[in-house]
């Protein structure tokens, strides 16, 4: 039976073909990654004028730069002469990019500023017509830099919807309200579709099975506490934040009057620096907000389509092909805290994440197992109905379920379908050429 694109994603299940087929992947690049906001990095990665880093938008090579005026640009890494990339390094500092094929030179705003032997071109040749292609829109929220190739895309603030509240909590862990990503990047990859990573980052059903071995080495008490978060009788929640974003909310009794110590600090820092840190938060935010911030420090937040905020990290999911994905983890440090706190954050992150971590590689293993399993024909669907009958609308108007429920995955695929099949409410989308059969 032939299925149309909009039949591949249904309310409580998705078809295996969306993970496997190059044609669908190409459409995802066009209708999601090239038409929507995508996360490209943190502003501290290009802190100084001239700083740059390379980052793809979908599968297209791009460069995030900071110009001399302090503005951030996202330039496509493609010489406007005959196509060579103009930037070869992953990061660095430069005021100009020279394409070494025939020597054309661009500034870090993307303007063409030099053409060798220019008299070879006729009088109608105008350098202004050969600026680098730029992301049509670049906007920031609390240091997070997003880019869009679609000039008509809605404002970033509207796009982020209810996720802003949780991004604020993450940033407010710093007494200065700012985090930095200047400690390097973990990079790993897997043979499997990019959506596996985005589903998994806010999947509260898997940890007690995939990460059992990690929890067991965390000592009896801490390990049991962690497993309790994801148990069938956990009080934690999963929540649909709108526009495809979602969160695992591990602080359901938020704003408790006690002073919780964030679990990333537990045991890893001296009492003195942990007290000094918490005092500085209270000075800035007061007791209640501080308790709320600390209670939320164990975060799993997904921003559609390619950002996950987990633990201390900003995670970029980079689609490479239907069955290949790269992932970059940007660990963050807090501005304005004792060094010890940031060192503890780095150590806690390393113990679980990265290609050699004690947790994340086990997730990735599941993505490759799924990719293999999905070759089976006849079992066509992946079931995402968990919690469908018990989810409810919370006081904030958002759909809430148990932490082990598939609320986040349903949120993701609702957005996916809206963008892929042309019914997104919050933005204009190019009409489908035909209701094509893929």
């Amino acid at each position, binding site marked *: 039976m032939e299925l149309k694109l909009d039949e591949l994603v249904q309310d409580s299940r998705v078809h295996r073909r969306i993970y496997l087929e190059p044609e669908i992947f190409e459409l995802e690049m066009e209708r999601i990654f090239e038409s929507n906001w995508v996360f490209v990095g943190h502003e501290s990665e290009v802190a100084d004028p001239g700083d740059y880093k390379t980052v793809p938008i979908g599968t297209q090579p791009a460069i995030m730069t900071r110009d001399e005026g302090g503005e951030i640009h996202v330039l496509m890494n493609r010489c406007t002469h005959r196509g060579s990339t103009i930037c070869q390094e992953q990061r660095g500092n430069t005021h100009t990019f020279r394409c070494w094929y025939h020597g054309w030179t661009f500034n870090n705003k993307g303007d063409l500023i030099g053409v060798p032997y220019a008299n070879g071109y006729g009088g109608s040749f105008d350098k202004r017509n050969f600026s680098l292609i730029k992301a049509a829109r670049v906007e920031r929220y609390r240091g997070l830099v997003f880019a869009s190739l679609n000039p008509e895309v809605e404002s970033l603030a509207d796009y982020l919807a209810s996720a802003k509240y949780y991004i604020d909590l993450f940033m407010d862990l710093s007494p200065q309200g700012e985090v930095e990503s200047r400690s390097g*990047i973990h*990079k*790993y*990859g897997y043979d499997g579709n990019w959506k596996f990573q985005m589903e998994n980052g806010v999947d509260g059903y898997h940890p007690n099975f995939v990460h059992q071995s990690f929890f067991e080495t965390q000592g009896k008490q801490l390990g049991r506490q962690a497993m309790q978060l994801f148990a069938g009788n956990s009080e934690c929640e999963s929540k649909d934040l709108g526009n495809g974003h979602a969160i695992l909310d591990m602080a359901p009794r938020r704003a408790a009057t006690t002073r919780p110590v964030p679990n990333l600090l537990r045991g890893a820092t001296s009492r003195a620096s942990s007290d000094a840190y918490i005092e500085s938060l209270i000075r800035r935010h007061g007791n209640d907000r501080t308790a709320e911030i600390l209670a939320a420090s164990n975060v799993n937040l997904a921003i559609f389509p390619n950002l996950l905020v987990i633990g201390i990290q900003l995670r970029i999911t980079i689609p490479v092909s239907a069955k290949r994905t790269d992932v970059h983890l940007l660990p963050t440090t807090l501005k304005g805290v004792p060094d010890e706190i940031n060192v503890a954050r*780095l150590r806690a992150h390393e113990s679980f994440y990265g*290609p*050699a971590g004690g947790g994340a590689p086990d997730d990735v293993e599941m993505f490759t197992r799924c990719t293999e399993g999905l070759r089976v024909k006849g079992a066509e669907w992946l079931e995402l109905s968990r919690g469908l009958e018990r989810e409810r609308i919370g006081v904030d108007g958002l759909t809430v379920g148990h932490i082990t429920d598939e609320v986040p995955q349903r949120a993701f695929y609702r957005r996916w379908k809206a963008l892929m099949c042309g019914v997104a409410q919050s933005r204009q989308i190019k009409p489908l050429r035909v209701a094509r059969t893929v």
Partner: protein
Amino acid sequence: MATLRRAEAEDMLYAEARLLDERRYGEWLEMLTEDSTYWMPCNGNGTDPNREISLIYDDFAKLSDRIDRLTSDVAHAQSPPSKTKRLISNVQVEPVDDGANVISAFILYELRRGKQRVFAGRYEHRIRFEDGRWKIAAKKTVLVDNDEVIDNLTFIV
């Protein structure tokens, strides 16, 4: 004070390579001092693990946890386990106060799930004389590709 000769250093590295390739991790831990660290930098040569993220920066306790996890039967990324074989060469010994720094080069073949990969890099072993024998007081592994995307790296390099 004993001095570590190159032949002894090589024997140690070969013995360690064999234990790791054969996944005899418990015996490997016995080659380490109890204040030992295992450092595998990310994004380059590694300058300060307190300011930069590493692929691994384990003290002895965390390394023991890592081994416990890897040898449990629910460490999925090592189920089935990687088969590895490493060759070690270019060994240089620099004597220091209570032992030596031993620099070497390695090539490591890994096979898992029908896929073979090759890794290469530099080992830096801090060797110290303790309890009547030479022990590893610190090990630093600098992979050539540590600034690139690396799939599953959960076996011990």
